[in-house]
């Protein structure tokens, strides 16, 4: 099956710093999403981005589908950005099911 690898596995930042998280996937995908899991375990969808670039406030994401990677940029980080960031993909075989394959995540800690 498709493999999803994320790097770095963990990251410590000072508040105000910028960071880039990477997601590599082993095969072509039709669906790529970024999620944030906060320290209390709640999962929130950040971006649906199978290709191209999107921005939402201090966060932006770029997927280069032909090279099988996606990047999540966090600018001017805040302590509330702490948590685990997951990349998830779906190849969309045949009938659509939205069956996501998750990477192992990047654990981000933003220190005040």
């Amino acid at each position, binding site marked *: 099956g498709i493999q999803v690898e994320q790097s770095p596995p963990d990251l410590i930042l000072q508040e105000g710093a910028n960071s880039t998280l990477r997601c590599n996937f082993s095969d072509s995908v039709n669906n790529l999403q970024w999620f944030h899991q906060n320290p209390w375990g709640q999962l929130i*969808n950040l971006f*649906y981005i199978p290709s191209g670039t999107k921005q939402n406030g201090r966060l932006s994401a770029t997927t280069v589908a032909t090279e099988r990677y996606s990047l999540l940029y966090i600018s001017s980080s805040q302590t509330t950005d702490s948590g685990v960031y997951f990349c998830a993909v779906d190849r969309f075989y045949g009938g659509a099911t939205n069956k*996501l394959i998750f990477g192992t995540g990047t654990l981000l800690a933003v220190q005040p």
Partner: protein
Amino acid sequence: NAGVTQTPKFRILKIGQSMTLQCAQDMNHNYMYWYRQDPGMGLKLIYYSVGAGITDKGEVPNGYNVSRSTTEDFPLRLELAAPSQTSVYFCASSYGATRTDTQYFGPGTRLTVL
């Protein structure tokens, strides 16, 4: 809207016991999913449903069963609990399965099997 709700929040089971994890959504979503998250790992799909009466297996279905009698509810059943089923279980739902349909997640159920 309450979104996706899960009960219980925490549970400790003994080996061999059974239990049902409850999941409900009030967003009139057609698609529902059960995932498990082991420590330090990403989520893995256990079962999913594309509508009432229709369910199918995900990546890791062994040891679990599901049913979907209504649009709102999607319970997950563990019949003979094993230590390997110690995990955090997340339920999610989405309106459809097109490429832009966001999955909304519940708060999770933390299960320990001793």
